[in-house]
Structure formats: structure tokens, C-alpha cells
């Protein structure tokens, strides 16, 4: 009986996840040339990926991006969730809905709107700078494009992570901290010693999703590329490289190898984070 219930999912899972994975794995071990056709090349594509600067530049960009953006976003999300849960806010529902609102905005629209806000011609930030007789800040230069993109991601995803953490906070039995409150523990101490440890699994969930999301970054930089092709190159993020190899250069085989290498890099990082978390919990 359970198989009847499971079959719609398992069939589509096999068709649209497992089969494509096998297909990609196969593809990544071949090379197709105009003359000579498709040949099996073993791990050649992977060896090439390991020494491909175009790929590792993208990976480095994403590390630089994530190492600042993820802690800021999750820290803000956690802070906001704790404040929503603390009962000291005047209009918690309004804050919750507005913080969450950008999640409902397609990332294409988010990138467009922020692109305009950053813009030199009619962007309000440049307008204010000119009004104050200052030089309008340049948001899309080699030095500033990563923070500018990180800001868009933060804007979009802070509320989503906040809602996951807030949902976890609401599920903590209040007896857990009522006693501490009666004993006179401050809200900050309760948050630090009781609430945050209690929702650690939810925080880890958001962290893992954020790491994966960072290494999958594509939409926003791909839109910025239209206006600033010299700043945002075809390999600015690993995923853009995958896309451009496949659909720009028709190198589907090598593109598949890059995608798998990226997946392995992501998995290693996630494993590192989870391993560190397990080690920390054993020590505690």
C-alpha cells in the first residue's frame, strides 16, 4: 500500500532527478568534437576543471560573497526572529510581514529594482549624493559588485530565514524559559542560553540552505551582466560558467563536469559545517 502513495513521487523523482544525474555523470566523462564525434575520456574533464582558473575564480567570488553575506543575513534573521518572539515590539505582525515581503518578489525583479536604485542616471542614491554635492557612489565596479549583489540577496532572503527561525521559536515550550524569567534572567540571557540552543537545528537548516544558495548564485549577476559585461564576466559565478559553457559554447560535456565539481565543493563545505556543528555539540 505505501508504494501506491509513494509511486507518483518516486516516478517523478527517478525521471527528473535520478535520471538527469546519471545522464550528467555520463556526459561529463565524454568529449564531443565536430570531427571525430563523441569519445569516452574518463576523468579528463574533471582534471581540466580542477586546473581551470575560470571556474575557480567563480568559486572564489562565491566564497568572498558568502563569508560576509551569510553571517550578516542569518544574524539579522535571528535577531529579528528573537525580537518578534520577545514580546517587546509594538507591531510584530507588521514587521514580520514586511520583512518577509521581499521573498515574494522574483529575484529578477529584485535585481532590476536594486539595479535601478544603484543606477547613476535616475537612481535615488545617486540623486541624494548629487544633492549633497557628493560624488555618486559606484555600485557596480570590480571592487563593489560583490557587496552590491550580497545586499540584494540579503534583502530577498532575510525574511524567509527569519520566518523559519521564528516558527521554531514559537514551538519552544514556554515552560523552558518561564522559570528563568521568574528568576529574573534578562531577555538577552534567555535568548542566548535557552532560545538559541533550542532552535539550533532550524538555524543549521538555514545555514546549509544559504551555503547551497550562495554557490548556486545566478539570477542577479546574470542580470547585472547586461549592463556591466566587463565587471560581471561569463564566469563571475560558477553557475554562470556552467550556463555559458553549455549554452554559449555548446560544451555540454565539460559544463556537466563543472556542475558536478561545483556540487562536490558545495557538499564538502556543507559537510564541514555539519561536522563542525557535531564536534561543537559533543564538546558542549
Amino acid at each position, binding site marked *: 500500500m505505501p508504494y501506491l*502513495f509513494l509511486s507518483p513521487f518516486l516516478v517523478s523523482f527517478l525521471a527528473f532527478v535520478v535520471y538527469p544525474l546519471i545522464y550528467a555523470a555520463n556526459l561529463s566523462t565524454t568529449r564531443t568534437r565536430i570531427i571525430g564525434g563523441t569519445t569516452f575520456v574518463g576523468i579528463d574533464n574533471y582534471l581540466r576543471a580542477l586546473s581551470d582558473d575560470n571556474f575557480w575564480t567563480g568559486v572564489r567570488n562565491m566564497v568572498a560573497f558568502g563569508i560576509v553575506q551569510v553571517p550578516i543575513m542569518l544574524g539579522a534573521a535571528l535577531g529579528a526572529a528573537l525580537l518578534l518572539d520577545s514580546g517587546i515590539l509594538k507591531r510584530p505582525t507588521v514587521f514580520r510581514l514586511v520583512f518577509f*515581503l521581499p521573498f515574494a518578489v522574483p529575484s529578477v525583479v529584485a535585481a532590476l529594482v536594486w539595479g535601478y536604485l544603484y543606477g547613476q542616471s535616475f537612481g535615488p542614491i545617486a540623486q541624494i549624493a548629487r544633492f549633497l554635492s557628493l560624488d555618486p557612489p559606484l555600485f557596480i565596479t570590480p571592487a563593489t559588485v560583490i557587496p552590491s549583489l550580497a545586499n540584494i540577496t540579503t534583502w530577498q532572503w532575510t525574511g524567509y530565514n527569519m520566518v523559519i527561525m521564528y516558527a521554531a521559536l514559537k514551538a519552544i515550550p514556554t515552560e523552558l524559559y518561564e522559570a528563568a524569567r521568574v528568576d529574573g534572567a534578562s531577555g538577552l540571557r534567555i535568548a542566548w542560553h535557552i532560545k538559541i540552543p533550542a532552535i539550533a537545528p532550524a538555524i543549521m537548516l538555514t545555514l546549509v540552505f544559504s551555503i547551497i544558495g550562495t554557490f548556486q548564485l545566478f539570477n542577479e549577476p546574470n542580470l547585472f551582466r547586461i549592463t556591466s559585461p566587463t565587471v560581471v564576466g561569463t564566469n563571475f559565478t560558477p553557475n554562470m560558467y556552467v550556463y555559458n559553457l553549455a549554452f554559449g559554447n555548446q560544451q555540454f560535456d565539460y559544463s556537466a563536469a563543472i556542475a558536478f565539481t561545483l556540487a562536490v565543493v558545495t557538499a564538502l563545505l556543507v559537510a564541514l559545517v555539519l561536522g563542525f556543528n557535531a564536534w561543537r555539540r559533543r564538546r558542549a
Partner: protein
Amino acid sequence: MTTATRTSPRGRAPSRNAVFANGIMVAGFLYFILPLVWLILASTKTEAGLFDSFGYWFAAPFNLLQNISDVFARDHGVYLTWTRNTAIYALSAAVLSTVIAALAGYAFAVYDFRGRNAVFAIVVGSVFVPGSVVAVPLFMMMSNFGLSDTLLAVILPALVNPFGVYLMKVYAEHAIPRELIDAGRVDGASELRIFASIAFRLLAPGLVTVFLLSFVGAWNNYFLPLLLLGKSDLFTLSVGLAYWNSLATQPGSAQFLYALVVTASLMAIIPVTIAFFIVQRYWEGGLTVGGVKE
């Protein structure tokens, strides 16, 4: 700060904290809302008005209605086609993937069968498969099956929602008492009937959560539709907007389409926003369970 004094019995210091906390949240409120305020104001301006006026104030003439009709008129009404495509894609992806996830999550929660934990582990593990790994094969599969220029090309992959299965399993474990299922069996109801008439209703908040997450995921998706939908009359809103924007901003060959792109962007986010506000009270309940249980 009456709220502060009411909730904290310890006098003045916490009330200063409360002022500080509310202040921070107001700053966050502005950060999250101001880009959208700009978008709304910009949609009311003409092309010239965008350049001549301050971004955070109105400009004469009030051009919103003209902009909206320009959006609908552009390229023989392709915007409406994009909206229809996006709605078909997002609705069918959300409805089907939610039902599929509910069936699977229910099976994982209610039945004991060989290999259950292993299969569930694989399903949950697949959440971590980056989309770009399967994107290229999906593209090739879809063209092999002659689906590459149909909406099915994006709907079919969206049927797989492993995070949804996880949420539904956890939710079903909490929301469906075993005694109820056993009682149904004693009454001679078939397993399918038990699911349809007893379990489905109890799963409602979880269903709303999964539906909403997959609806938004599909409505806002850009990567897969960009890859799989080549013809402009099959574009989704995200792909179409990016295309219009590229016409507006391409260095050298720019057309003056800013007012159009801005207004079309505003129009694209309204349906999802409304959907969210309507169901927001229902859906967080589903996450509450998902967020705690690991």
C-alpha cells in the same frame, strides 16, 4: 513605551531596550520596504519623469494608467501571454507537487515498510543536489522528448519537491493520530479513502505551506525557464522581464523602455504578494513543525 512597561516588570532599563529594539526593527522595516516604495512611485512616471524627478517623490504627469496600458500593448500583448504562462506553470507545479508530496509524506509517516528510512534519507538528501547539475540534462531530455518548447518542460521537473515531502512527513506525524487511521480501517474504509476523507483535511496547514512555497518557487523561478523555454511567447514573467530589461539597458543599443520595465515589474509581483497576505495566517503553522524536528 507602555508595551515595554507592561511586559517587563523590572522598571526602566528594559524599557530603554524596548525603544532600542523597536528602533532597529523600524530601520529594518525601511530597508525592506523602501525599494518597493521606489518601484511603486517609479511606475507612476513617464520616461522623462523618471530622469527628471527625485526617486522618492511623485512627478507630473501621473502616468500609471498609461504605463499599464503600454505594458499590455507592447509586442502585441505578449505581457498577458507571459502572465498566463507563469500562472499555468506556477499553479500546476504547486498543485501537483503538493498533492504528490502529501501522498509521499503521508506514506513515510503512516506506513512501516522495508527500506523506508533509506528511501526517505535519499529523498531528503536530494534537497542538496544543486539545480545546475540537473539543468543541462533536463534541457537535453526535454528536447529529446519534443517538450523543449512547451510549458510541460518546466512543469514536469517542478513535480519533485523533496523539501515538501519532508515537511509533509513531519507534519503528518504530528497531525494525524494513529487511532483515527485504525478506526477508519475497522470501519472497513480503504486506505485511499482514509487518506482522502480523514488525513487530507488534517494535513491542511501543511498543505498550504508546501503549496505556497512551491507556488512562489515556480512563479519566481528564472534559471530553468530561461534554459528550457526558448520562444518568447512561452516566456514566464521573470524571463520576459529580464528580456525587456536587456533591451532597455544594453549599452549602445538602448531603447527607452525604463517606464515599461518598472511598471511591468510592479505588476508581476502583485499576484504573489496578494496570495501571501491572504494565506499568511495558515501557512506558518506548517513551518513550525518543520523547523523544529530534524
